């Protein structure tokens, strides 16, 4: 086989995302069909999916998806897990034999809640505790990776083409109200199972086409807040930056978009006085959270997604709507494959986010947020 550099594979990553804003669920086959249309954008070195609303029976629990290189890594992780969490259910994630998916690690999932006494002893919120736990496992347990950790959602990824990854994980058997998909063409970093997209932390997942030349600045910035980057791929920082901005700093989604794809200084100078003040502050406070370099990415969170390009739009992104369903993808054909006649198709500008969220009235129904009245 020819080594990288001796063979030219004309390609680029592919991304696709679909949300039904009414909260109605649909099969993973649809997103698999969408991303498969862009087969030639990836090279078989990574494919993956994020699915939201797939675990209604355990929606209160953190759903940990794990890769283990060997049984020793599994034992070690499970010991840690059982010391810190109450596990409601655990199983090997069902897969089917697929010709093109090879060298699969051991893949397990656990539905778990942190033990109350552990939380109390640590004086820490459960989300922060879970994040700490994930970084501890990914950094310190040799051969173990927690690659998905949200509630009522899950990431499924592998080395392979996305449509093969969907077949491998039997994604047609899952139903979710929001899905994203990625076909990978790794350029600077290795093609391995942990490095496939989506990258996830709690309920936030990211699929990305492009390269983040700001990776090292972003990584150092995130480390100041206790994040550790262990997955050898630039996109990892995008997931943690959105966790920081949305969960920790409670920024509105639309402003988080303006942090990662910050307007250029000369554009800020042309803004109204009020806007100028806002963007001046935002650019200064979050200068190290700016994602620089070419990108189109879809970030999924609790109740919706944001799709966005870099400011000078060096990667493709098309959006469409059909009734309550919003689609985004690298190519229009990936949308048309699963929605022949959308009501509207448009190409967002660089740095201009497409934000699609579940209608508010449906949110509480789906997430059943624990709101305790006095």
């Amino acid at each position, binding site marked *: 086989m020819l080594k990288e550099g001796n063979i030219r594979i004309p390609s680029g990553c592919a991304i696709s995302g679909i949300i039904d804003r009414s909260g109605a669920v649909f099969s993973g086959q649809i997103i698999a069909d969408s991303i498969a*249309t*862009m087969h*030639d954008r990836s090279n078989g070195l990574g494919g993956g999916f994020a699915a939201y609303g797939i675990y209604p029976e355990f929606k209160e629990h953190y759903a940990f998806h794990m890769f283990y290189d060997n049984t020793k890594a599994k034992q070690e992780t499970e010991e840690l897990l059982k010391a810190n969490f109450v596990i409601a259910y655990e199983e090997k994630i069902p897969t089917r034999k697929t010709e093109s998916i090879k060298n699969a690690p051991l893949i397990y999932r656990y539905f778990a809640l942190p033990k109350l006494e552990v939380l109390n002893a640590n004086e820490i919120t459960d989300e922060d505790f879970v994040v700490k736990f994930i970084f501890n496992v990914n950094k310190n347990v040799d051969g173990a990776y927690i690659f998905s950790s949200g509630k009522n959602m899950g990431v499924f990824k592998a080395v392979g083409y996305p449509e093969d990854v969907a077949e491998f994980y039997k994604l047609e058997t899952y139903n979710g109200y929001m899905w994203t998909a990625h076909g990978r063409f790794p350029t600077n970093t290795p093609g391995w199972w942990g490095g496939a997209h989506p990258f996830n932390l709690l309920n936030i997942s990211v699929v990305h086409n492009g390269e983040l030349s700001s990776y090292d600045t972003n990584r150092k910035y995130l480390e100041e807040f206790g994040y550790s980057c262990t997955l050898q791929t630039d996109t990892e920082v995008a997931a943690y930056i959105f966790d920081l901005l949305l969960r920790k700093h409670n920024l509105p989604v639309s402003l988080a978009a303006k942090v990662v794809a910050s307007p250029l200084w*000369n554009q800020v100078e*042309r803004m109204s006085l009020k806007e100028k003040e806002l963007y001046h502050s935002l650019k200064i406070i979050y200068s190290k959270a700016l994602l620089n370099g070419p990108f189109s990415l879809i970030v999924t969170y609790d109740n919706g997604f944001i799709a966005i390009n870099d400011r*000078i*739009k060096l990667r*493709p992104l*098309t959006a469409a709507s059909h009734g309550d369903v919003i689609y985004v993808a690298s*190519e*229009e*054909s*990936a949308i*048309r*494959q699963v929605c022949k006649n959308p009501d509207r*198709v*448009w*190409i967002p*500008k*660089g740095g201009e986010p497409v934000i699609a969220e579940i209608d508010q009235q449906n949110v509480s129904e789906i997430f059943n947020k624990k709101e305790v009245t006095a």
Partner: protein
Amino acid sequence: MRTIDAKDMHYKDLNEMIKELVNAGEDVINLKNVNGQRYIGDNLNGSTKINIEGTPGNDLAAFMDGLTIEVFGNGQDAIGNTMNDGSIIVHGHVGDVVGYGMRGGSMYIKNDAGYRVGIHMKQYKDKVPVVVIGGTPGDFFGEYMAGGCMIVLNLSNKKDIVGEYCGTGMHGGVIYLRCNDVEDYKLGKEVIKEEATEEDLKEISKYIKNFSSYFKYDYDKIMNHKFIKLHPAGHRPYGKLYA
């Protein structure tokens, strides 16, 4: 006339079939259910007309030399890359990097176009590429343009007729914008902005006539508006850089 149902067909198989028909001198090829197949019409010459129903994939008509391609839908990225001759008509919008390095032929887009349209277009003697956009293009329109003619009509009256960095590094060719004025901050410093003259409008009238007939617009209504002309200050902007 031949019709091909391209549903779920791989682009290699589809393009093999098209190539064979074009080389055999077929006058019209109708492609149905096209969705995402790349490289349609690439590197072909002849006088065949290809009608496409659906959404053709990237690099449509790259290096094309002759032929007419009419798309009844939207286009994607990199249409007419380094195209040499022929005509492309798109009844919808198109993506980024359209008409890159185009050196001949014409392209008519009914609605908007993406970023980096007509980068480094060039011309030589009677080879003058033409791009007409009924909507508006994004940033970097005509960046490093070295020749040819691009016309933006903004028929839906959007606020910005072009994005930023329009004509940056431009050193040949001409851009016409159907508007009363365009903000200077959007233009490259190599660009001279002036009102289009009677003679200029006469020059572009044939392209507007084509546009009007392809997409059923009233020619007079389009022309009854001020046009701004952008052209480069000099042909060798970097001539003294290494002197």
